[in-house]
């Protein structure tokens, strides 16, 4: 049984990765999860200099989901390369570094520091709703997506994954823009911008007022966008948004994703990544599927006869 997939020339032993920002750099979760078993560890966003993030509270629970406005707190690329890279390189898994910035120059600075020695792919977060400059501004405008993609492509030694925002009218426009700019892959979705109010205090629950909605609540929107995006481009798609199980992951794969990421589900269960991998494998075994690549994009139009679903 083959569960390995290829994205931008890089082989992943299985399609299951961690979603950026939900797994740190793997250290904390390595207490629960053998990182060697993962397709890749996708790191928390890394910027050129340390970022201190937003005011607390940074998260709020919502019905079937959560809001976060961490604000990309991170130690900056120097500490990251010094401390996190050696730790991650001690495992037999791909490293995808998630990169954030407030300007094109910021992104370039980080991208240029990362070579085959430090990582396997780069994921460019142009869609974080929780920073004032840069971030989501890039991700909502197809022209800017294409531009930043092509600029970073010139500076990157590693394959580029552009991470798309779901807060757009037409996800196929930004997906195509990333492809046109030379992206090697796209990943989606980042979080949907949301809000929560504490009615007793008459205040926003989050320090940052708005936050990004993630978790199982958003899965149907994520799946639709992954389906649309993967049918709009020819580069591989990494799907995420509410994946909690092998079944969830298989929906994204059948919709057209080559890779999948588990994010918020780690908070619901620290073993979520491993359970997702095991779930995919047992589905394949049960259905005698020799190669997971057969499943990518296999969903068919619904021509079920009208009526009756017993």
């Amino acid at each position, binding site marked *: 049984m083959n569960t390995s997939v290829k994205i931008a020339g890089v082989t992943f032993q299985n399609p299951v990765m961690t979603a950026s920002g939900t797994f*740190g750099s793997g250290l904390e979760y390595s207490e629960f999860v053998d990182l060697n078993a993962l397709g890749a560890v996708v790191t928390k966003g890394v910027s050129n200099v340390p970022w*201190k*993030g937003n005011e607390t509270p940074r*998260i709020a629970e919502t019905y*079937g989901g959560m809001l976060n406005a961490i604000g990309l707190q991170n130690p900056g690329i120097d500490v990251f390369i010094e401390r996190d890279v050696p730790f991650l390189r001690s495992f037999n898994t791909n490293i995808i570094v998630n990169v954030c910035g407030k300007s094109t120059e910021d992104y370039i600075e980080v991208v240029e520091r990362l070579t085959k020695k430090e990582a396997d792919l780069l994921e460019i977060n142009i869609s974080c709703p929780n920073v004032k400059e840069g971030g989501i501004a890039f991700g909502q405008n197809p022209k800017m997506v294409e531009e930043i993609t092509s600029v970073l492509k010139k500076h990157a030694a590693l394959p580029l994954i552009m991470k798309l925002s779901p807060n757009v009218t037409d996800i196929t426009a930004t997906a195509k823009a990333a492809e046109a700019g030379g992206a090697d892959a796209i990943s989606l979705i980042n979080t949907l911008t949301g809000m929560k109010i504490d009615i007793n205090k008459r205040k926003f629950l989050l320090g940052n007022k708005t936050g990004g909605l993630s978790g199982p609540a958003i899965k149907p929107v994520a799946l639709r966008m992954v389906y649309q995006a993967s049918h709009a481009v020819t580069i591989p798609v990494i799907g995420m948004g509410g994946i909690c199980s092998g079944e969830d992951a298989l929906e994204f794969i059948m919709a057209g994703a080559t890779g999948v990421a588990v994010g918020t589900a780690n*908070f619901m269960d620290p073993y979520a990544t491993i359970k997702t991998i095991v779930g995919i494998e047992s589905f394949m075994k049960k259905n005698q599927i020799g190669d997971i690549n057969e499943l990518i994009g296999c969903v068919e139009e619904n021509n079920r006869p009208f009526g009756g679903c017993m």
Partner: protein
Amino acid sequence: MNIVKQAAEVICNDQISEGVYDMWLKNMMISHAAPGQFVSVYCKDGSRILPRPISICETDRTNKRFRLVYRVLGEGTKELSRVKKGETIEVMGPLGNGFSIDRTGHAILIGGGIGIPPMVELAKTLQCKKTIVLGYRDAVFLKEAFEGLCEIVIATDDGSTGIKGTVIDAIREKNITGDMIYACGPTPMLRGVKALAEQLGIPAQLSLEERMACGIGACLACVCKSKDKDEHTNVNNKRICKEGPVFFADQIEL
């Protein structure tokens, strides 16, 4: 100590005061927790996806048990209050650093409201001279847990028991002093404790609270502002779930 995430059997779960519950759970690993550590309690209802952080009130290593004392605040703790003896709940722990134990001198323990529970394990562990100042809005709970362990001073907002006022009022009124303060309670109380400690020149350890997602230091949800750069993210933030929940008062902003 290793962190586990496991189903734990509920030994008992009883209301001990208006809206305050006392629960014993069976789990060998977590029964080895240090004073001031906490657990993450997972809800059964799938609409509530984040675990609830609750301090470990007391441990019983012989019987591989630990105790939680919690107040019903929202839906998650309401659900918890309805769990019956014999059922299991998913918990992760022990989490956080716990208090730094100073075995000499006179310890002042300060617990406010639902910040009182972790003081029980601490009082059991500290072998020095100790005074506990317990602050309540009105109804007193968990007082008996400290009897025979420490000198007990009580303050209530409504004056129904002990001194009328805050824990700070009580400390001033009784002229309590010592060599180390250990405190847990609402933020305004901790601010008062920090000021008092500075004024008295006593070191203070404060157990902080913040909304949490991962509980293990991965998501950076639960930070507080710190004097030193934290070595994890190289900024003046520390993770309450990992470097905390207990911090020396002079190391953090409140």
